[in-house]
């Protein structure tokens, strides 16, 4: 299979890139693991479902319109329900080939797609806070709860509690309430004062009034529904035998210390954890793209130039994978990445590309100002560190605890890189391949060794970036699947 442009990820960035590229005549293949385009933010109900009022709020209007228009374009080929496993240089000598082979698990078989231009719009996923009990069934990423409600149309629990630092938890709590669920609380770690300080600046207020209005409406509805929203509190542990049944919450002192000994117990069977987000840069890294660390923007974010091109020729990046900034920024970065591809292919001259990119860059810079504020506001900082006990899993797949990591670092004085700690401890070697533990591990090593996160470095991302059944790889094309 061949395409002029391959886009991995059908979220806002991928959709916007696909739309622009296809409007300019390119044949595009868009790949996504989900069975419908939209990404996590516009995660659609399953095939054959009809939801009468789906994501009605006006802040979703632009994204939904890009989704609708990309979905109807003739020269976009959708390969959905497909997991991209990695990329290879297509030529026999990697040095001299400018073609990229994209290896895809389509569910039954492995497909190879060749292209000269690839955009990774692989998004992000919820940051998992590690605390005692975080692996109990019933504890979920808040984004995961949201996907059950808005896409699967199910209220996944009886009593919901949301704890974290990110305003997303207000939106999801509201969606759960509207769907008939019972939310017993939304707990923020920040002081209410600090939440307000972000909007004190009248310019910020004015520029992003739509977003503030939406949040205000959400808060108002939650208050009317009788949902207690508290500030300056943190979770301490989740309790339960086979599944979560209660959560211990404690206040945070003015100097930021969680008062673990004075906790209150909240009964709930579904805990939504909502701190920041982590970028999904595994595919870009497996392809050799350079990354740099950002604590606030999601860990190992991919470096890029002004046309969103990564350090690897032919590979561009767009959206959250360049640093978490939200759907609006992702749309603009997707457009910019597509314009960069069109420029490189010679479909657009440099003047035309610059002219088309100018308004995109202007909007992007505005959006980034807001995204920066939001990141600063929702960054949990040193809080998550306090929730760890020595027995808490850092690597949930292999059962490697914070204590195991400390021991490995203490006993092996020379080991100081993320990959070396992975090798000696098995952290990050399980099925999720380090997607949740790389972030806290990087921070833990940096702190322990008094080094910068960039010195520690990310886990080397290997092929396949998600586990794949070996029979799909060994299958010979002339045999039936």
């Amino acid at each position, binding site marked *: 299979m061949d395409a002029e442009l391959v886009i991995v990820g059908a979220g806002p960035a991928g959709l916007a890139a696909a739309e622009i590229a296809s409007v300019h005549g390119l044949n595009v293949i868009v790949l996504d693991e989900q069975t419908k385009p939209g990404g996590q933010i516009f995660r659609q109900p399953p095939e054959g479902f009809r939801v009468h009022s789906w994501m009605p709020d006006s802040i979703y209007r632009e994204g939904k319109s890009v989704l609708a228009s990309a979905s109807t374009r003739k020269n976009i080929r959708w390969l959905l329900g497909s997991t991209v496993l990695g990329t*290879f*240089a297509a030529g026999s*000598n*990697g*040095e001299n080939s400018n073609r990229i*082979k994209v*290896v895809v698990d389509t569910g039954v078989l492995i497909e*190879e797609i060749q292209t000269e231009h690839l955009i990774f719009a692989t998004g992000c996923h919820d940051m998992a806070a590690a605390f005692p009990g975080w692996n109990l069934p019933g504890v979920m990423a808040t984004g995961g709860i949201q996907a059950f409600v808005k896409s699967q149309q199910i209220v996944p629990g009886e009593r919901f509690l949301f704890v974290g630092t990110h305003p997303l938890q207000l939106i999801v709590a509201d969606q759960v309430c509207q769907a008939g669920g019972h939310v017993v609380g939304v707990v923020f770690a920040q002081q209410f004062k600090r939440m307000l300080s972000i909007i004190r600046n009248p310019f910020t207020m004015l520029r992003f009034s739509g977003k503030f209005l939406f949040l205000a409406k959400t808060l108002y509805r939650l208050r009317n529904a009788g949902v207690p929203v508290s500030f300056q509190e943190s979770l301490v542990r989740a309790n339960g035998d086979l599944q979560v049944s209660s959560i211990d919450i404690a206040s945070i002192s003015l100097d930021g210390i969680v008062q673990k000994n004075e906790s209150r117990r909240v009964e709930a069977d579904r805990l939504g954890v909502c701190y920041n987000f982590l970028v999904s840069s595994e595919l870009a890294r497996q392809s050799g793209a350079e990354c740099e660390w950002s604590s606030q923007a999601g860990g190992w974010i991919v470096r890029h130039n002004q046309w969103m091109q990564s350090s690897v020729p032919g590979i561009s990046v767009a959206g959250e994978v360049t640093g978490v900034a939200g759907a609006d920024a992702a749309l603009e970065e997707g457009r910019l990445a597509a314009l960069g591809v069109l420029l490189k292919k010679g479909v657009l001259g440099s003047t035309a590309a610059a002219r088309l990119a100018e308004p995109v860059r202007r909007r992007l810079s505005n959006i980034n100002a807001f995204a920066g504020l939001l990141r600063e506001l929702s960054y949990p900082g040193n809080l998550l560190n306090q929730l760890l006990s020595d027995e808490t899993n850092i690597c949930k797949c*292999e059962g490697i605890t914070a204590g195991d990591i400390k021991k490995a670092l203490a*006993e*092996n*004085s*020379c*080991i*100081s*890189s993320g*990959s*070396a700690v992975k*090798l*000696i401890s*098995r952290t990050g*070697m*399980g*099925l999720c*391949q380090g997607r949740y533990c790389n972030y806290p591990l990087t921070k833990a090593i940096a702190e322990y060794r008094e080094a910068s996160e960039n010195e520690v470095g990310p886990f*080397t991302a*290997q*092929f*396949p970036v998600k*586990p*794949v*059944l*070996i*029979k799909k*790889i*060994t299958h010979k094309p002339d045999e039936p699947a």
Partner: protein
Amino acid sequence: MRNYDVAIIGGGVIGCASAYFLAKAGVSVAIIERGQLNAGASGRNAGSLHFQLEHRLIHNETHLKAQLPHLIPLTLAAIEQWNTLEDELSCDIGLSMSGGVMVAETSEQIRLLERKAKLENRYGLAVELLSAEETLARAPYLGETVQAALYCREEGHCNPRLLTPAFARKAEALGADFFTDTAVMGLDKVGAGWNVSSRIRPGEKASERLEIRAEKVLNASGAWAHEIAAMANIHLPIFPVALMMSVTEPVPVFLKHMVQHVGRKLSLKQVEDGNLLIGGGWSARLQQHAGKWISNAPAKLSLDALKSNLGVASEIVPAVNQLHLLRTWTGITGVTADQLPIVGQVDQTPGFYVAAGGSGFTFGPLYARLLSEEILTGLPSEALQPYSPARFGHVNMYMGN
């Protein structure tokens, strides 16, 4: 300037094990490693303990006959050492010596196994040729195409994640100094000893220097040993080759042997944690620039080679097909012109020792022990004599100091 008796270049299994044996004898040692410890072939190989002659060594019988008299005594010494290594290192290194089978699928391959068995037994390595039925009785996980197997009781595996760090910890406790993220940039023979000049964090602009004065230098830099040798004005015929390894998801233990193939490239084993490690010498691609290998760049994985490697594995052990592949990675090892390692002092540069070039995991701890004795006593090791750099003396006729 820091002073040491011995400077070891390379923080892999040979370097760290040598540091341990030397430090244990009271010698002051510095280990200089340009990256992290165990980051090269020592930590990336598949951990096989192969005591039978490997696939790569038995392509022609003349070769086989010439090698066996030297190899088997060393093999027996290695088996003896592995048997006591966990006690010596007083920690878990994931060691399992529960037997290995080298399988055959054709009558020609069976004949090769027969000849190999006869020779190996004659020189003292006990191996047992199993018929198809005996093979399946002992190894029920093998596929239907397997016709025979050569069984070696002592074969098995050790965890490459754990072995080198275990030696390093022991060496450090005995006073060895480790300098990681430190790249040797120059070696100068001054008087009877060596000045070793290195850069700490070589990739960064403001990297600091490390200056070491050592009486002796041990080059244990694996695939790149020829680059370090060049700093001592010596040619070392070691050639980097890139290989790939794969690991599956962990599953309950069902495969207790190390599995090899006499005619196809395969090594397969199940580790303590339940994962299967799949290798066998399938190549990856070294990165180059203008015809020169880039020595610090990871090798590139080849999808075709991966398909072939997993294909052989799943034909020999059909259950492999039902497992998920977790990761495939590449590593770079060194081979020599005659497939035998180069271990010993270089005649043209007294005080400059080498240990590199093949089977470094199975035999690394043994080379380290024997070479350490040689360094300590100044007397060439009898057992290592066939591996002496002297056999390549002609390329260094105009080199050295």
